[in-house]
């Protein structure tokens, strides 16, 4: 009998896994709650530069190969011992192998006042509609303080708030209101970035863009009525417009056994094989797992390739590679690291911006037909491996 593989979630990790496995004759079913796939970094461009949300959305059905079964539904429970998945509407699915790629759960209740803030202004994490809401406020802003902050040091795409600040500053400059609107970037780190190497490269660019940086500021509560954000460290900032990155938790499903998760709900995996601890027929890829690397689309994509190769019988291992882009006006840099190498110095350049724009342009195709892009991506990641570029790039 053909092996039945269940892929939970149609984000980059889920789609790459499913579409690659479908090429090898498996009976692949993807379960996804949304009708549309959102290119999540697109929310930055929607929120801070007014791009149309449609640009970053595609129907999930157009992103799976014809032989992949697509089930529209929300996962309620995964029982690893019984090999069953139950959906919220009561449907039960059995599997021979499962790949959990459900992403992280955004917790807007962890910080008092946060849900009021996001309902009022929107943000660039909750969804394309919230990003569009943020833009409707940001584009009308002609004076005051824009605060970009985070509720917890662990969130998707570590450079996201930096990109938000750069894109916001660029828009304000183009609108001619740069001098009357101050952009305050409040970060829960000692430097402008968790890695000092990256912070040193980014700091002068932030100064150049006129962004005011406040370090050691972890959002603790928000007074949405009086427009004040308080930090765990005991400081406060008054805002006219603000976007706060919510705390990230493991996926909001019931996962049995409960020991399969860590304290924050992330699924415990072997960081090299992405196999769920204690189960040789279950994997977790991307933001939902506890692998000690960044939560980004690139890690989800690369992790999915590793899982597929392992299912095919190869001894493939995920090295934790990140390639998080930081974009400024016309240039880009990447945060490049692996499990074995902390981020290397990567200077801003026009070429890297070209690469980033090419990555974005190839996004939809790379999800549906990942096999076509694998040789190119593989060559890129090898050419830019921290052990090869050594002193920096």
């Amino acid at each position, binding site marked *: 009998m053909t092996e039945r593989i269940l892929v939970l979630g149609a984000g980059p990790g889920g789609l790459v896994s499913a579409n690659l496995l479908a090429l090898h004759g498996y009976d692949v079913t993807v379960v996804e709650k949304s009708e549309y796939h959102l290119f999540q970094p697109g929310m930055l461009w929607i929120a801070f530069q007014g791009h149309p949300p449609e640009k970053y959305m595609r129907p999930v059905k157009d992103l799976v190969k014809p032989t992949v079964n697509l089930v529209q539904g929300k996962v309620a429970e995964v029982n690893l011992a019984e090999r069953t998945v139950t959906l919220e509407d009561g449907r039960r699915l059995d599997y021979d192998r499962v790949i959990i790629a459900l992403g992280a759960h955004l917790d807007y209740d962890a910080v008092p006042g946060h849900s009021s803030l996001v309902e009022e202004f929107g943000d660039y994490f909750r969804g394309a509609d919230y990003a569009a809401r943020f833009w409707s406020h940001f584009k009308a802003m002609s004076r005051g303080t824009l605060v970009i902050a985070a509720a917890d040091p662990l969130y998707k795409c570590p450079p996201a708030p930096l990109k938000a600040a750069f894109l916001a500053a660029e828009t304000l400059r183009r609108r001619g209101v740069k001098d009357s609107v101050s952009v305050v970037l409040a970060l829960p780190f000692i430097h402008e970035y968790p890695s000092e190497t990256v912070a040193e490269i980014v700091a002068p660019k932030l100064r150049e863009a006129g962004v005011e940086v406040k370090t050691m500021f972890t959002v603790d509560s928000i007074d949405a009525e009086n427009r004040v954000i308080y930090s765990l460290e005991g400081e406060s900032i008054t805002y006219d417009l603000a976007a706060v990155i919510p705390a990230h938790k493991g996926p909001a499903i019931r996962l049995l056994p409960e020991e399969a998760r860590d304290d924050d709900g992330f699924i415990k995996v072997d960081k090299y094989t992405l196999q769920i601890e204690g189960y040789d027929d279950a994997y977790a890829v991307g933001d939902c797992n506890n692998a000690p690397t960044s939560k980004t689309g690139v890690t989800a994509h690369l992790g999915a390739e590793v899982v597929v190769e392992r299912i095919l019988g190869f001894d493939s291992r995920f090295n934790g590679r990140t390639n998080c882009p930081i974009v400024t006006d016309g240039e880009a840099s990447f945060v490049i690291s692996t499990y074995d190498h902390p981020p290397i110095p990567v*200077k801003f*350049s*026009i*070429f*890297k911006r070209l690469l980033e724009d090419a990555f974005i342009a190839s996004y939809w195709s790379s999800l549906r037909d990942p096999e076509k892009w694998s*040789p*190119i991506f593989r*060559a*890129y990641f090898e*050419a*830019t491996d921290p052990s*090869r*570029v050594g002193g920096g*790039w």
Partner: protein
Amino acid sequence: MAERDELMEVIDKLGQPEVREALVKAVDLLANLERSGLLDLLIALTDEDVVKRIVQLVMTTGTMKLADNLPELLDKLGAIAATLAEPAEPLGITGLLESLKDPAVARGLSRLVTVLRALGGD
């Protein structure tokens, strides 16, 4: 039914003047490529295995670094090319030592030494 819809979508597109115009140009281009033999070359170059090899050849650590510094490199090459139009006087060893007093020349020499180091390294 879905296939029929997709077919209708294609037919609709053919009705757009800019699509028709583009198609006529594309056909002319293909005919030119066929006459010159380049079409066969392109077919060979786009073979799956050939593409893989080309990518391996082109996408290396060296080319990544080269492309990254292309604007600076082109600036320097442009500046060097501009000097070629100027007449050059023969220069002896004393003249060379004398010209090292010019900080720009001294910096250039330092760069040359760096280049030598890179050439001689592993």
